């Protein structure tokens, strides 16, 4: 399997790292020798210096023998031309392009046919907005991911002090919450350590608990666990760029009272023309007077999404200091990710991380439902079909010989989605959603007596 990646930036690098780790032949093309040397120094991949929009370079990279073509540079136009050429050189190659400009994404249909035939357009900005909206839908959450077409949710929540779940053994969680709610505790984060728990583990004070539940039972579950907090209504968005304006448009309705700050007067004028209910303010997100004027202390959520991450962090800290309930900051550099929560910002979003996740998700199409990464990348959710001869079929989950650190979160039988208990019996051809730490993946393969195929 040969994968060609055009662009050795943060997205290209990380996708290359993950794919080469899964024994793929990866070729990375970039103009910048420095970026390339960073790739070739640390990864076992081939690098070619040159333009991804040059047919000669693409030939050299072996497009004709490749199966997947990823165009993930920062420039939409280069990505489009590169995919166009790849399509000309090998028409049946699978193509992904990272495209951010709204001018293009509005006409995504145009790119999926004709001379381009892009299989998937990755728009990191849109995905960031989606993840912000998900976070807003459960205000107390640390992380939220959707599976099985949005029917199943994985919600990470920091357990509040008075929660009835405190000190409860996992096998008794269902008793505690009521038998009518289907829930599996997928993971616990304690003292910054990720634990994929077994039935004998206990939930402790201060844990971040990852619940797997049906989406329609989410609110009831959180209520019973003593977690549900007031819905987010009053929102301040700092930064009216791509992400900011997309987000503002999504929040431009009666359910929210949204304000948006941008420092550029012309941009503000443009935004006020396109937005209806959102109050557009011209000023600086780190201007304390302005924040006071707009009564930031009373806001439910401050979302800082300018292109300048230091500024984002600062305005979130300032807002938090003035009394804002929750803050979300946008980060570009991965190096900052571990810093965010310790300094008191509630959530972070990262367009590049979103892009990497969706690229990986697509590349492993069907086999890994979602490249969901819990706690950075320590754990991953995968999908496998239960084989007839496998050890796991025909006995209840509690008697299965799964390696420690592996859990079955839910499975699909026909059209039904089922969240299992310890007594549930797996049947052949059930599609399982499994959470596991990275290092355990080979062991799971063995346990399932089938090779986990990524393709």
């Amino acid at each position: 399997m040969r994968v060609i990646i055009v662009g050795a930036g943060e997205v290209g690098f990380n996708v290359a790292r993950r794919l080469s780790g899964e024994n793929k032949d990866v070729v990375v093309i970039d103009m910048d020798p420095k970026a390339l040397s960073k790739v070739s120094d640390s990864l076992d991949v081939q690098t070619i210096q040159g333009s991804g929009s040059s047919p000669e370079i693409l030939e050299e990279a072996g497009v004709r023998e490749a199966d997947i073509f990823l165009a993930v540079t920062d420039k939409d136009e280069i990505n489009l031309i590169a995919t166009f050429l790849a399509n000309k050189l090998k028409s049946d190659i699978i193509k992904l392009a990272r495209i951010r400009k709204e001018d293009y994404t509005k006409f995504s249909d145009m790119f999926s046919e004709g001379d381009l035939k892009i299989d998937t357009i990755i728009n990191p900005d849109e995905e960031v907005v989606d993840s912000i909206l998900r976070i807003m839908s459960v205000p107390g959450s640390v992380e939220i991911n959707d599976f099985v077409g949005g029917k199943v949710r994985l919600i990470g929540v920091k357990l509040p002090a008075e929660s009835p779940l405190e000190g409860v053994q996992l096998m008794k969680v269902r008793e505690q919450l009521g038998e009518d709610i289907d829930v599996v505790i997928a993971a616990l984060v304690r003292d910054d350590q990720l634990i994929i728990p077994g039935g004998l583990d206990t939930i402790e004070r201060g844990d971040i608990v990852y619940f797997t539940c049906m989406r329609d039972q989410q609110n009831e579950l959180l209520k019973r666990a003593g977690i549900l907090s007031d819905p987010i209504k009053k929102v301040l968005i700092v930064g009216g760029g791509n992400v900011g304006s997309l987000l503002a448009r999504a929040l431009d309705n009666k359910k929210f009272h949204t304000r948006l700050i941008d420092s550029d007067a012309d941009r503000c004028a443009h935004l006020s023309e396109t937005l209806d209910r959102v109050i557009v303010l011209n000023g600086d997100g780190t201007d304390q007077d302005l924040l006071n004027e707009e009564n930031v202390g009373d806001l439910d959520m401050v979302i800082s999404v300018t292109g300048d991450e230091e500024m984002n962090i600062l305005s979130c800290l300032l807002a938090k200091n003035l009394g804002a309930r929750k803050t979300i900051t946008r980060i570009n550099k991965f190096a900052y990710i571990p810093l965010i929560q310790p300094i008191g910002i509630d959530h972070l979003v990262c367009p590049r991380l979103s892009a990497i996740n969706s690229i990986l998700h697509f590349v492993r199409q069907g086999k890994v439902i979602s490249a969901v990464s819990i706690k950075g990348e320590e754990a991953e959710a995968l999908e496998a079909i239960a084989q007839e001869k496998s050890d796991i079929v025909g006995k209840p989950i509690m008697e299965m010989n799964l390696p420690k650190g592996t859990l079955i979160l839910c499975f699909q039988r026909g059209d039904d989605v089922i969240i299992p208990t310890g007594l549930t019996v797996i049947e052949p051809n059930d599609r399982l959603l499994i959470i596991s730490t990275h290092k355990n993946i080979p062991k799971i393969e063995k346990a399932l007596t089938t090779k986990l195929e990524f393709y």
Partner: protein
Amino acid sequence: MRWKIVLHTIGALTLCVGLTMLFPLAFSLYYQDAGIMPLLKSFGFTCISGIAMFLIFRDREGNKGLSHREGMAIVALGWVIAGFFGSLPFYFGDIFTNYVDCFFESLSGFTTTGASVMMDIEKNAKGILFWRSLTHWLGGMGIIVLSLAILPFLGVGGMQLYKAEVPGPVPDKLKPRIKDTAMVLWKVYLLFSAIEAVLLMLGGMDFFDSLCHTFGTLATGGFSTKNSSVAYFQSAYIDYVITFFMLVAAVNFSLHYQMIKGRPLLLWKDPEFRFFGVITLVIMVIITVSVYSATNYESIEESFRYTSFQVASIISTTGYATADYEIWPAVAQGLLLFCMFLGGCAGSTSGGMKHLRIMLLLKQAYQEVFRIIHPRSVNRVKLGKTVVKPKTMNDILGFFVLWLALFVICGLVVSATGVDVVSSFAASLACIGNIGPGIGSVGPTENYAHIPELGKWALIFCMLLGRLEIYTVIVICVPEFWRK
């Protein structure tokens, strides 16, 4: 400024006015009344003048493009000259004792005001009465084209909104598409006229009356052929038909065009129409209730019938009457007075300030308040989803101020001639808004005959300014306009 082109065009216009005099002439011949000679004389005089102007000022170089200024001059002078030739049948027919009354009646017709100085209407020749109503209809035709095609092009008083806002037949050039625009809108106007005339005849009116009342309704004029206006017919059916068509005439004609083209949804999506609809309905309901409880109408239905008619008549600036609203409760009179300021929608045949402007001014005012609470907010006045340019907002503000100033000045002038204060200001308002009847001694049961000559000239000026959206007339009074 090329006078030749201006006068050449006005010559053509005069000829058109002259030719339309054949219609009342036909009625006069049919009824064999006293209108034959005056109409024939007017017809000859007008046509000859028109042809003469048309030929003398013909531009042999064939350069037909019009500039902004020439456009404005044609519009403003065109109305005055139409008013002059339109007054000839009254003059030759010895209807009035002095010339100012002839001109007042004629211009009141062409500006679709409907303010009359005619004492006993029914004793006049039918041909003359038909001409009187026809001036409405012609004026209405002119207004539609003026407000939807010419004024947006000239950029007068915020009307350029329509260049961007209204989908469909809106031109961005005075020529050649203005011709197409005019044709399309006239077809709509003609269609509605035909429908109303037929409906009125079904309600028992004869051909003559139904045509005259149709002209008065769709042009939002208000000249009737009866002394007691529409009340003469004593028919609920006729009242409702006229109410409906008065409201139709107060709605933007390009929306009607869209509706006929099979896009009725645009009507509901139009913010001005919705604003107009809500205001009209609310006022109708309040007045119906207050009138029902204060007067001796037999049922709420009867009360609604008279109320809806008067409200539609005033808000559309038509000026027909089926009841004397001066005996209604104060709240009803107050609301009707309010309607006089409002007028109908932009792009209709109605006068007044127009709902569009009022709506945008209210939005602007709200934003000023909003800005006090959020000093650094950036916001724009929007009409639906379109942003209204600051320049347009300034135009509208300027229009508002000029309109009110004109109202006050003219009111003062009329009161200076000895008319009581309420009546003089009501007369001023009713003329700027092109409504017709006001309150006091110019109320629905009275007319303008008693106002002294100076007052009449002032009101004539008001009608013209009100009709031509003020700027068009004011601008040609400024010396800068005439500099080369």
